[in-house]
């Protein structure tokens, strides 16, 4: 019997889809059987980030409505065995399915998979309610910005009202250089307000955008710092104790580089 984890945030654009794709891929890399469900009906993205858009035949709504068998709506990942995607319908909207249907779907899927990851849409309306309906656990994604943290707080309250009382937090797109200058909320401030367990911190990384556009999750790249962070998050989900990446050292290295370059520039000019 697997575990159903919903990945949600309230605010849009904080990296739910990227996080779902990367955690899912990382779990598959660790040998788990994983299915990713795109619950953002009408605005599907997860298939694009996973690079599976052109393989979609049936989708979540088809499966729920019985147009196809459950298995037919699952797309096998092109890189990793044991990784599947259930895409959202693009021509329908959030009201096409109900929380009860979603719950039934999750029950069925978790019999065949170790992890069922649900990529929730932004907002707190029907789509959100559908996404959390079948979940056993929740991961709340936020970025270190006041507005995103507010929304995360609201979401945590709503999750608690739906018996998901112990969500875990992923702080995405952290820029250590800005934190150091005092221009960005630091992790402690964020956790202080939200008061939930930290699952991981993902540094801001340009590679994420590049790899998302290419349809290849960043976890597959050994050198990507964000990829490393996602791999660690996956290991923590499996119950391993993994220390947070020392991002400070990364920054000092970057700073060294920057100094080096700025020094060069000066000499040139």
């Amino acid at each position, binding site marked *: 019997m697997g575990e159903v984890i919903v990945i949600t945030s309230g605010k849009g654009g904080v990296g739910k889809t990227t996080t779902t794709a990367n955690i899912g891929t990382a779990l598959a890399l660790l040998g788990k059987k994983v299915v990713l469900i795109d619950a953002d009906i009408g605005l599907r993205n997860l298939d694009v980030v996973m690079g599976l858009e052109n393989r979609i035949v049936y989708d979540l709504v088809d499966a729920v409505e019985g147009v196809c068998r459950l298995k037919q709506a699952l797309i096998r990942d092109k890189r990793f065995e044991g990784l599947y995607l259930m895409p959202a319908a693009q021509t329908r909207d959030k009201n096409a399915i109900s929380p009860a249907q979603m719950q039934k779907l999750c029950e069925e899927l978790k019999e065949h998979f170790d992890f069922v990851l649900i990529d929730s849409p932004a907002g707190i309306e029907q789509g959100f309610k559908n996404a959390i309906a079948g979940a056993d656990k929740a991961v709340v994604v936020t970025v270190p910005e006041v507005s995103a943290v*507010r*929304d995360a*707080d*609201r979401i*945590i*309250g*709503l999750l*608690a009202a739906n018996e998901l009382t112990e969500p875990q937090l992923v702080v995405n797109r952290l820029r250590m250089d800005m934190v150091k200058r005092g221009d960005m909320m630091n992790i402690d401030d964020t956790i*202080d*307000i939200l*008061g939930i367990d930290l699952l991981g911190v993902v540094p801001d990384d340009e590679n994420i955008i590049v790899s998302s556009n290419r349809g290849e999750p960043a976890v597959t790249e050994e050198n990507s710092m964000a990829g490393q962070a996602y791999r660690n998050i996956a290991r923590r989900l499996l119950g391993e104790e993994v220390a947070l990446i020392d991002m400070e050292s990364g920054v000092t290295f970057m700073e060294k580089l920057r100094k080096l370059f700025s020094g060069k520039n000066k000499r040139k000019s």
Partner: protein
Amino acid sequence: MKEQPVVFKGTRNGLQIYIAHGSDMPEIMEAAAGKLQSGKPFFEGATVNLTFFGREFLVEEQTRLLELFARYMKPGSVEFRTQPVSVERKDLPERDHYDSFDGIEEGMTRFVRGTVRSGQRVSYEGNVVIIGDVNPGGEVIAGGNILVLGNLRGIAHAGATGNQDAVVASYCLQPTQLRIAGYITRAPEGETAKPPYPEVAYIRQEQLFIEPYLPGKGKQADFHTT
């Protein structure tokens, strides 16, 4: 410029309506209806004490005016007088005037365990004790005192039914907005420093004061009512 026929003034005691001397009835009705319409969501469902002053009315005119107001709110006590009501504190034996909660020293209390998060609201006619934080976007409304055994970052409204003796106390008082009875205050712009000691907020001489409640811990600071 011509004097406005109708002027509304909100007070702790309800609504004072000034009707200009020499204005005629259709003019008054039109002006009042316009003001009521624009304040419709504010008045809706509320019980409001009405005090009319200024121009004198015939009984029949009074009835027409009241009927208009009753379409937008539930009139509480209604008074027609020629002089404005003094807003001196002495004149307001509010316990008699209000149906306010008077269990400030000892009375009904609700205990809430856990964090009041954004979008959540705790409201109770007595005192409220929050064993946890109140986050930005969260609201606590109490007829009596509000105690937050944690960080108060959201909105707290103590004495919401009119008791000005109510206090708000917290281990870390950083509210978005603090309200006691009819007073609404907000934190000074830009200052986000976390107070290093527990504080209590109360009303004294029509001003909201905030000070540490453990003697000798920090200096008195005051918020200004807005």
